[in-house]
């Protein structure tokens, strides 16, 4: 599921986990606060724009949210005003939701305008199609059952799809166990370009292991080239070894204007769910 390049990257960085490490305090200067945009537009009912601010390196807790911005998504000349937290849900601070009847479709271009404290941040992306997930199956992992990291969790979920060889695609994957995001490690992102992929994607295990009764959901998003590059850059940044073997850390290339951080992602989405049952093998 990982990008070919990320496999290479991690494999080599992984070798240095056999060395010794210790935590050090950094003497950091020159912090200047910036606006962070996390936007997602999909051809399903998953649409939001989240706005927050960056903070000092050693700050903790949730980052500062922007609650009074003007957020508009324009498509085909039509403005759609996104409203901040319409139901005053404490968990949705800084989240702007679309108006009723906002239904994105494949082929359209979406333009974001977010005005925060008098400054405008803009971005634009097209909604590209995504192929479908053929199916998911469950398989018992012989090794994991011997010593499961979490008791009961020793089933793998396998993914099947046909990758279209006649067009250029980029993908992002998200996995959920009972509606919670699942990652093998905190800094993992599952994304890929199709340059190295063959047509048959068979029996590809998704992240982590699952227990009987778990509801496993796989989401597959289409990415534009720019989105793929952003995810690749973010992945390199959060997995960087400081520039010894990996390239020196750098800010990801993004599509937000006016020095805004983050990304405005527009995707088609395909979802598949399976409940883990003992198939008797």
């Amino acid at each position: 599921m990982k990008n070919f390049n990320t496999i290479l990257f991690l494999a080599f960085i992984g070798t240095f986990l056999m060395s010794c490490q210790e935590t050090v305090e950094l003497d950091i200067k020159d912090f200047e606060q910036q606006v962070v945009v996390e936007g997602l537009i999909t051809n399903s009912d998953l649409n939001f724009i989240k706005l927050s601010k960056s903070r000092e390196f050693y700050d903790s807790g949730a980052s500062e949210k922007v609650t009074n911005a003007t957020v508009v998504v324009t498509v085909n000349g039509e403005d759609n005003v996104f409203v901040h937290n319409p139901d005053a849900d404490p968990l949705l601070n800084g989240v702007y939701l679309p108006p009723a009847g906002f239904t994105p479709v494949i082929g359209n271009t979406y333009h974001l305008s977010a005005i925060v404290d008098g400054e405008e941040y803009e971005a634009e992306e097209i909604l590209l199609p995504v192929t479908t997930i053929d199916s998911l199956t469950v398989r018992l992992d012989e090794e994991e059952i011997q010593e499961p990291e979490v008791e009961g969790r020793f089933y793998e979920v396998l993914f099947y799809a046909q990758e279209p060889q006649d067009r250029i695609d980029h993908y992002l994957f998200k996995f959920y166990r009972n509606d919670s995001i699942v990652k093998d490690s905190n800094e993992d992102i599952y994304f890929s370009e199709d340059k190295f992929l063959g047509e048959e994607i068979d029996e590809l295990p998704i992240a982590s292991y699952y227990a009987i009764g778990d509801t496993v959901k796989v989401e597959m998003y289409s990415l534009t080239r720019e989105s793929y590059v952003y995810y690749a850059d973010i992945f390199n940044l959060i997995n960087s070894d400081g520039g010894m073997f990996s390239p020196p850390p750098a800010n990801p290339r993004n599509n937000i204007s006016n020095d805004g951080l983050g990304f405005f992602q527009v995707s088609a989405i395909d979802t598949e769910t399976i409940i883990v049952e003992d198939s008797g093998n």
Partner: protein
Amino acid sequence: MRKIIMLTLFLMGITGLINAQEKFTLNGYVKDAQNGEELLNVTVYIDEIQNGVISNSYGFYSITLPAGQYTVHYSFIGFKKFTQKVDLNKDIELNISLDVESSQLEEVVVTGEKEDKNIQSVQMSVNTIDIAQIKKLPSLFGEPGIIKTIQMMPGVISAGEGTSSFFVRGGSADQNLILIDEAPVYDPSHLFGLFSVFNADIIKDAELYKGGIPARYGGRLSSILDVRTRDGNNKKFQGDASIGLLATGIALEGPIKKDKSSYLFSARRSYVDVFARAANQDNLVYFYDINAKLNWRANNKNRFFLSLYTGRDSFEIADSFGFNWGNKTATFRWNHLFNDKLFSNTSLIASNFNYGLELTDPAQGFLWDSSIEEFTFKEDLNYFLTPRFELDFGYHLTYRRFAPGKIAPSDGSIFKENELQHEYALDHALYVGAKQQLSDKLSVTYGVRLSIFQNIGNSNVYLYEDPQDNISPTRTDTLSFGSFEPIKTYVNIEPRASVRYIVNPVTSIKLSYNRMIQNTHLISSGTIPLPFNTWAPSSYYLKPQVADQVAFGFFKNFKDNMYELSAETYYKTFENVTDFADNAQIFFNDDLSTEYRQGISEAYGLELMLKKNKGDLNGFVSYTISRADRTIEGVNLGRTFVANHDRRHSFNVIATYDYTDKWTFGGSFTYGTGKPTTIPSGSYQWGDGYIPDVITERNGYRLDAFHRMDLSATLTPRKNKGRKWQSNWVFALYNAYSRKNPFTLYTQVAQTDDGDIIGDGTVKEAKMIYLFPILPSITYNIKF
């Protein structure tokens, strides 16, 4: 009548004078009496003309003088001076064998230096590696470190632990040309820099040129490390074995036909993997290398040499991931004397560096490999015109093939087969250099190297809407070139010049200028080249890198050449330094040229060194203060940044002490300013629990200073004297006070070593990696 007699006498006188002006040549080879090895850089000094010559890289000397009687002295450190009276009334071939100085019969001491060579020689900015001294120094796991010693020389900075890479005078690690018997070695590390590809047991001579580089060398911007192996004892059979905690080596040599031909064979292998496999440990790493040499002195005018090297490193993690890499080289040489003054060396050289990466996984398995191969023809000539004028000139032609990468998926893998296109190059060089003594005090060397580099087909060049768009490169056209069809030709002239002025017999000053061109570029954006980085030739999009260096030096010897002081300062400017755009994707990128960013670099520094050559306590102290920075459009937003390889201060001490006949102690200490690194100025939250850093400035922060002390003790049992089998024990302590030297620094969300998040997952921390704590070792060496 008287007039006729006068005229006849006069004519006879003139003829006599003409006869007296007739010149003859004295030439030959100087060898080690014990094993027949030719000695490089032996001084051949003639009292009557107060001048002399130095034997060349193959041990050959030639001196042309008017007929007469001469007293010739042959001298070389570690050997007894030899004097011969010569009646030069015809061309004479005189081959000399020098005896080792009796106090050091246990070890062949090959230092390659005349006592006051640093004052006399016009060559500046060169460090000669004392092989015998290296063997007394603390070494990691008993392996004498040629690269480790080089990293202590002034102007040379170690790239750190985990690698054998080094930086010379503000140049990055890829700007050093490392040669073994004239063949290039692309990665000199074994076992993450714990060992190097150079086996000290078989090295004859190693010279590192940092500046004032002679015209016969080229191809890299910052240094040439010219390592030559021994030929093999052509008098009797000899063996050396070295058994250590991590690796074992054996070297065997001997005559095939006494005094005429000999062989040298050596092999080393590490075996920690054998124990690890037995202990069911998952991570395995090992290396091996083999050197073989054959030489044949057909007659006095022709000698033939064949040297071969192959080495490999292999690293496996838990049966699922492995990678291996290695160099293979072969050199065939023919030394030929055209006449007494014209020495020729013809070499045919082949070199291959390749690596492979394998991921064993049912769904995502693949094998990736890549290589670079080159074949070279070299013709080098040395013309010893007069003792005051020597010419060297030649032609080098290299064919290079670059195979940057091929993926072969394993059965059932989701990946499909893919290969990056190959690139080819033809590299021509023509050079001429002269060494001229203008007066008793003033000598010069000057020369020029003409570099004609061609990037050739069979390959395609892609044209882009924007050649620097590395997000979504859009090709507008593809130009196809057939086999050997020139795609791009770069012609460059590299002038070289040095001047030496002798102030008095123990003091001299030197000045040099050189221009170097580099047409082979390392595709890597980290500080240290990974074993699996690739190289690329200058091409349609990649221009040759250029470096201009001016250096000035002051040299003084004290107490009868016991102490040598040198002070050198240099200034270098670089053009077209190859770097990569921020966020460059350098692995497996069909449009890699869109990531190239070439810019300028500037470096300058002051190097000081004090060396003690004689007595029981030997060694040197060196200190370098320097700066190197780069300015490249597309990197760090086009702002000037401190280069990855900049280390403001570098201080090194190496000392060996011959305490008694039994015990020798060695020690080294190194101190360097910390490596520049990029740290965040803040962070933000984005996506599903990701907390990326905000990066404001590249290399704006320094890691803590790097310092380390190594100690060793060598015990030679008294019973060695006179015995056929001789042995010694080496006890060494690497990183004697267990300093945690920062290797790199990275940030992450605060978590335990197992990956469990600490706290609520919103706090970030910085982690420093350090590689080696204190490491003791014992090695047992036998000589038979």
